[in-house]
């Protein structure tokens, strides 16, 4: 049932001096698939995307994008892909409309298609009243949105997005996900790096990158089964004190404040619930509910990343 991969990465490697940025990386992305790349800062997400976009040459291994080998034929690959780097190259002295027209011309989009597509994208971005503003006068989040509009103005076979929704508000993030779903319905393959783990849940498959290597790669629901242990969630009027109290419990491997809830990682929720309850009672903390929940991608991320030292390659001791 599976098609030929639109992106095929095998044993890809890249180092900068003695820092290994990408290490023996292998994965694929199929037409009609959104693949989410998550990982802490410095994990190698941007380096990977830049190699696939043909702007950085790999040291070892191979990668093909829409059938083009990125090392042998980077120009061929570029024709079939759209790449949105973290800082998209906007012309600050051009207006929003002029930037969009510039990129549409660059990709050879016909006028009629351009007008229809840009109206759709501008509406999704909530840009209607800002289309004549100079790009240099937009706020950070709005520049990010304009970059996305420019990158999505054509429909290539492969789209590479490097943290596209950083600084973008929740309403626009939802609208952009609608656009991404409509693109994959047309058979486009999307590789999307993100630091919003709720967005990772919306991808068809997710790869967790850490120190240049893929720790896990699977569908979100399968990934959650790899979580070592179980998760208990506590709803309480005072989540901070709840977290502090539960941190003292022997059963708690990790205690996280997640918005207005507290997540506790335990080995066996059924056995440990009573212990956690008595811990809260002893600290005289009232709570509305305490129950086992399915782990989220964020829970998996935190447990996988914290099991190794948090020291990052970029900040090694002098």
């Amino acid at each position: 049932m599976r098609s030929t991969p639109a992106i095929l990465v095998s044993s890809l490697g890249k180092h900068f001096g003695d820092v290994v940025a990408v290490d023996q990386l292998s994965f694929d992305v199929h037409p009609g698939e959104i693949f989410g790349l998550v990982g802490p800062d410095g994990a190698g997400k941007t380096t990977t995307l830049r190699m696939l976009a043909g702007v950085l040459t790999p040291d070892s291994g191979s990668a093909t994008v829409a059938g083009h080998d990125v090392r042998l034929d980077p120009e061929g690959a570029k024709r079939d892909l759209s790449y949105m780097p973290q800082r998209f190259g906007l012309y600050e002295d051009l207006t929003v409309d002029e930037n969009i027209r510039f990129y549409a011309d660059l990709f050879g989009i016909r006028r009629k298609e351009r007008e229809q597509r840009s109206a759709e994208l501008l509406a999704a971005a909530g840009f209607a009243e800002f289309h004549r503003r100079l790009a240099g006068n937009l706020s950070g989040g709005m520049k990010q949105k304009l970059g996305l509009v420019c990158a999505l103005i054509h429909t290539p076979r492969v789209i590479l997005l490097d943290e596209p929704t950083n600084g973008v508000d929740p309403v626009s993030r939802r609208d952009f996900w609608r656009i991404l779903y409509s693109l994959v319905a047309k058979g486009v393959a999307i590789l999307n790096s993100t630091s919003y783990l709720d967005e990772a849940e919306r991808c068809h498959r997710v790869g967790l990158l850490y120190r240049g290597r893929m720790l896990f790669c699977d569908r979100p629901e399968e990934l959650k089964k790899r979580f070592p242990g179980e998760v208990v969630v506590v709803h309480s009027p005072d989540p901070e004190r709840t977290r502090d109290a539960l941190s003292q419990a022997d059963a708690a491997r990790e205690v996280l404040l997640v918005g207005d809830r507290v997540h506790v990682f335990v080995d066996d929720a059924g056995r440990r619930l009573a212990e956690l309850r008595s811990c809260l009672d002893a600290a005289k903390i009232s709570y509305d509910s305490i129950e086992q929940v399915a782990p989220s991608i964020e829970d998996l991320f935190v447990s996988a990343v914290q099991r190794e030292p948090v020291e990052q390659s970029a900040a090694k001791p002098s």
Partner: protein
Amino acid sequence: MNQTATSVVVENLTKRFGDFVAVDDVTFEARQGEIFGFLGPNGSGKSTTIRILCGLLRPSSGHATVAGIDVARNPEAVRQHIGYMSQKFSLYNDLRVAENLQFFAGMYSVPKNEIPARIAWALHMAGLDGRAQNPTSALAVGWKQRLALGCAVLHRPPIVFLDEPTSGVDPVSRRQFWDLIHNMVGEGVTVFVTTHYMDEAEYCNRLVLLDRGRIVAIGTPTELKSRYMKGQLLLIECEPLGPTLELLQTAPGVLDAAVFGSGIHAVVADAASMAPKLRELLSRKFRPGRIEQIAPSLEDVFVSLTAARATGKEVAA
């Protein structure tokens, strides 16, 4: 430290750029030792308000005091009482860690004899003990972010403005950053923060939701979730998500639908009567799992209050 109970007072504040009204008649107060969250879509006036409060922009009308000082009349004095950290962190990448701290200590006029102790404090807070001589450019984003916070509060300001301090930072680093914010607030500092992460908005004592320069909601996270949501919310679990979402968006009685994590949130007028109708609709094509009423999250409230106009247009089109 300023001991008054109110640290920021904003009355009928308005800022125009040409004929564009960026901040439109905004009024609120923030108390000492409070984490005050500013939410709103991009371009809704959050950063403009913060820049006015920091004395960096003059208001067009209305007025604001910060630590008792009028920001329009005395912007220089305001800057001595506040710390400001922008989205870009504003560190000098070609300087060493300690040199950045030295620079900000000088800029904020930290007394000479206090500088070594304050720098040692900031290094410790940022988790950079023993790394004073590291080049700033080589730090990973999470460390840069904590260093930038250290630079912004070297002079012990009673009020700190953080403009999207965690944008693009991974979840583990974001948690560490919020621990630092909680520590500062524990010492009586007032923290103003803007964010697009709704889990972080939950950590604020009070929230203001701005849309097109106007306040559309104000209150604690709990108040926002209980008072402002228009309609009731259904959680729908049904694969595949994309086609399910399309079907729900055009389904009669569904006011709005969007993907949330691995499920879909649908806004309806009456959850009890709509749940069986939607199950029947979805069962014609798919095999729906759970369909049940849930309490709205902050993101649901945010979307329902700020997307109302745009969604209205889409439906009409």
